[in-house]
């Protein structure tokens, strides 16, 4: 029973990571109808930036915010440079560009920061809390990811800029007619998605150690979470991410064993797309012939 509770709590902690990456994916998907296959690699790159800042002597949270901000700028730049021409391109072209971006970011990470596995510090105490059910890092990481997700939610719901960004994602034509600069809203969306990715990377790196391919498995879980929750619903993506975290932990511990956890993600993806493609909270989209 104790092990079970610990698995659930662990699952919530990793779920927070998946929920963050899933949210980043859904934000970009909602606005552009493209899946950012490079989201994981961008998050890894951001984590390395944080490590560099820490090694330069900056306190942890300053480095954290630094990586957050730099990632934001990188996200905005990528959108402005690469994504304008791809906006209305056929699917094959856009998939090609995103895979290309994945390769470039992945290689750059390896080239700039080398391939040796590195340790990444955690700002939270190492000890087990609450009678051993949860580690300091798990609790802290869940707190951080939840806070970021809540802040993002408040931003979109209650600020003018957030409203403009949502409008640009839902209806770019009408948005232009009220004066919203749709292009820049997309760029901001990319920036925010990249910044959220950096949070996820910093929270997961202490556990899985930092190397250029750190996020490829996590990206898969995030995909599963985003699809499970509904790829056009940000709230759904967050819930989906947490659910996948719990399912992964329980499944890995009791059903398929830890070696097949990625397969579990694959099974979730196939199951969702076959049974309920719009996810738990997404809207059904009917296309007119």
């Amino acid at each position, binding site marked *: 029973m104790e092990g079970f509770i610990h698995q659930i709590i662990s699952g919530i902690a990793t779920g927070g990571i998946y929920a963050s990456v899933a949210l980043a994916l859904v934000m970009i998907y909602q606005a552009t109808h493209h899946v950012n296959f490079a989201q994981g690699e961008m998050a890894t790159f951001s984590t390395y930036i944080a490590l560099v800042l820490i090694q330069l002597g900056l306190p942890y949270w300053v480095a954290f915010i630094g990586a957050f901000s730099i990632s934001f700028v990188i996200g905005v730049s990528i959108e402005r440079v690469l994504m304008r021409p791809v906006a209305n391109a056929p699917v094959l072209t856009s998939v090609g560009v995103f895979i290309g971006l994945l390769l470039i970011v992945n290689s750059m990470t390896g080239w700039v920061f080398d391939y040796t596995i590195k340790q990444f510090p955690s700002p939270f105490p190492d000890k087990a809390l609450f009678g051993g059910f949860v580690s300091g890092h798990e609790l802290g990481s869940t707190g951080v990811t939840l806070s970021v997700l809540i802040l993002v939610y408040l931003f979109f719901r209650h600020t*003018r800029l957030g409203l403009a960004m949502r409008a640009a994602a839902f209806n770019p034509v009408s948005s232009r*007619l009220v004066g919203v600069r749709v292009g820049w809203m997309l760029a901001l969306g990319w920036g925010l998605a990249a910044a959220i990715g950096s949070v996820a990377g910093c929270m997961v790196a202490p556990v899985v150690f930092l190397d250029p391919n750190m996020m490829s498995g996590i990206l898969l879980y995030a995909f599963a979470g985003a699809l499970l929750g509904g790829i056009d619903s940000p709230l759904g993506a967050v819930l989906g991410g947490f659910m996948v975290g719990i399912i992964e932990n329980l499944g890995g511990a009791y059903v398929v064993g830890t070696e097949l956890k990625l397969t579990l993600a694959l099974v979730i993806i196939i199951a969702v797309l076959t049974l309920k493609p719009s996810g738990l909270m997404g809207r059904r989209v009917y296309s007119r012939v």
Partner: protein
Amino acid sequence: MTVLLETKSLHAAYGETKVLHGLDFAVRQGGVTALLGANGAGKTTTLRALCGMVRTQGEIALAGKRIDGMATEDIVRLGVAHVPDGRGTFMELTVEENMRLGAYTRPAREATADFDRMFGYFPRLKERYRQQAGTLSGGEQQMLAIARALLLRPRLLLLDEPSFGLAPLIVREIFGIMRRIRDEEGVSILLVEQNATLALEFAEDAYLLETGRIVIAGKAAEISKDEGIRRSYLGY
């Protein structure tokens, strides 16, 4: 008459297909100008051209300033509000959010005062304030679209087929409100309508568009009295 908007030799095309062939027309300052024509004549394209939403050639001048070639977002900030065909409602957002977007280009405090004026014209919007806009009826969405446009405090209001798909009773209600708006807001209106009777009752000047060219131009009152024009072009 003072002219707010004027076009000279306006051409427009969708890709390779040319739709407008050299239009010359003007919108009177403070008045209502009607743009009539059958389906496919190019009326909607004309409004889109004025907003920079299609590729154009030729001149468009707003109060003497050239706006052809400008981006939509910038034309909007010069005081042009477009109520598109199909209403252009932000379906997933609430009525409140739709209205806030209408006031996007204005400082927040100013806009909130205007909200009350909008409720004065369209009390139903106040009732449905927190409802999702996609659940509103066609007539209510049309009201919302007009309110959204007015919240911009525009100099020029472009209306694309406000009567489309609405029951006659609702249409009359909306046109009644639009008369009040014309009198109280001091905004110039360019009205595109398939329903010629309605439009000619409301407007001072009228243009008739046929396959991308203006074939008739004149005072609305005279055109509606001319039986020949009515029979050949307007179908009644």
